[in-house]
């Protein structure tokens, strides 16, 4: 009888030390690269012989001051709260609609019926839909959510379709032979198999959702949000403030990407997808 179940335990700290050193080196290189970019930006923008005037993109020092000011008076975080809430609603709705649509078009009849329609809808420029959403939903948060949802749902749709196309047919047959119905197959196999693709879709959809939400806030009048702050700074020709807001959005999107990427790696490692036979 083979009782040795598992891989040998790793010596504490032994195998981890190399990746940790590599990670430290990567972070150091990234910080150096960012410092070089900032230094170049500081030196080459706004000077007498510069290509770009300071009132176009400002200078890092001015942007840092504006960023500090915005953080101190709370404007940045209250704006982020409004924008992030709208993005959250849209992501949840987009993920739900996109995955359900993919599952529906998984059946031969569903694919025959809906596939051409989905392809046509995907080709429509989403920003062009904004006036339609305003007419239907009015000048409200719902319009923002509708616009962002229509942008991200296709990412989830195609991710889920790929997951379904790659579904392990042997596992599917095994489950069906055990007596599993459609709902059970969906719950126990399809959704769980699709998790890596859905994580990846989230990583792609999040920055797009933020960008689309800010666009919506610029186009559809609203009282708060990062888009509103951006618009105010632009109207006042305050490049430092505008760039500070944009950098803040980039930072938030990056941190979210790191968080989702980390969750994906942890999941993949926990179920041994890379090591699975």
């Amino acid at each position, binding site marked *: 009888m083979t009782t*040795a*179940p*598992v891989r040998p335990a790793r010596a504490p700290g032994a195998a981890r030390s190399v990746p940790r050193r590599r990670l430290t080196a990567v972070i150091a290189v990234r910080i150096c690269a960012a410092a070089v970019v900032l230094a170049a930006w500081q030196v080459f923008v706004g000077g007498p012989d510069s290509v770009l005037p300071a009132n176009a993109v400002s200078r890092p020092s001015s942007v840092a001051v504006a960023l500090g000011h915005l953080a101190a008076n709370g404007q940045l975080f209250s704006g982020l709260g409004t924008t992030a809430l709208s993005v959250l609603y849209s992501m949840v709705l987009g993920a739900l609609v996109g995955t359900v649509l993919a599952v529906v078009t998984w059946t031969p009849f569903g694919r025959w019926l809906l596939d051409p329609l989905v392809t046509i809808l995907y080709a429509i420029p989403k920003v062009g839909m904004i006036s339609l959403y305003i007419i239907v939903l009015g000048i409200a948060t719902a319009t923002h959510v509708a616009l962002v949802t229509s942008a991200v749902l296709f990412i989830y749709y195609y991710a889920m379709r790929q997951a379904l196309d790659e579904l392990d047919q042997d596992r599917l*047959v095994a489950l069906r032979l*055990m007596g*599993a119905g459609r709902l059970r197959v969906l719950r*126990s196999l399809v959704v*769980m198999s699709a998790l890596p693709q859905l994580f990846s879709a989230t990583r792609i959809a999040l920055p797009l959702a933020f960008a689309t939400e800010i666009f919506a806030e610029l186009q559809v009048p609203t009282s708060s949000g990062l888009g509103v702050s951006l618009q105010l700074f632009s109207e006042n020709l305050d490049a430092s403030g505008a760039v500070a807001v944009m950098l803040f959005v980039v930072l938030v999107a990056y941190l979210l990407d790191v968080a989702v990427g980390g969750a994906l790696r942890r999941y993949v490692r926990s*179920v041994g997808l890379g090591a699975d*036979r």
Partner: protein
Amino acid sequence: MKRRGGAGPDVRERAGAVADGAASGYGGPAAALSLSGVRFGYGDDLILEDIDLDVAAGEILVLIGPSGCGKSTVLNLMAGTRTPRSGQVTCHGTPVTGLNRRVSYMTQKDTLLPWRSVLDNAALPLEIKGVPRRERHALARAELARVGVAGVEQHRPHQLSGGMRSRLALARALLSDSPILLLDEPFAAIDALVRVRLQQLLLEVWARTRKTMVYVTHDLNEAITLGHRVAVLGARPGRIALVRAIAAPQPRDVARFRTTPEAQQLYVELWNALEEQVNR
């Protein structure tokens, strides 16, 4: 010994094969699975032609044949995942149309769910049947202990060795409580020593449960050691070329039986039959 030219269904021979089974003590005269005049192919590519094969209830039938002759296709037809072009597949007298839920299927690549623990993988068939959590976990723990996978219930499948995964897949198949077990080279990727242990485990499981088993393999020793009967499938389009009953009582001692003169004589006989099919 029964030779078949593959010209068409031979009811007398088929009935005799089942009676052989009954005489060997592994089951009654009723066929658990029966293929009558089965043809199967994709387009112009004919894979199986005029397959007539009965598997008696409680019998272990081993199917061998050259690569690509359609051994796995026979199992797929029995499981109902493929439909014959002509002929009929029946399970306990009922025609198989659609998935045959009276069978469990074990393949070389196990179908364990990597995101579930060992215990939850084993208990999955019971979960699908709606058995309460506490009860199904108790049943799964007991079955895991019987097949030698105790103490790793909370591990994930990727943390197990190949042999342990096979044991887990077997436990899950047994917990599904299907009367028929289809095994498609389930231990092919396992190293030799562990494979012998798994073969012995399979015979112990058979002795305990008396399940009908259809086992596909390339390994003649494995076929001779495990089977009540060994059927040789001819080169494509596959036909049943030979069905050989093995008289030695079950459960056999896997490690020793293959060294007996009887097993060695069978080996030569089956080797010649296979070689004839390959050179055909």
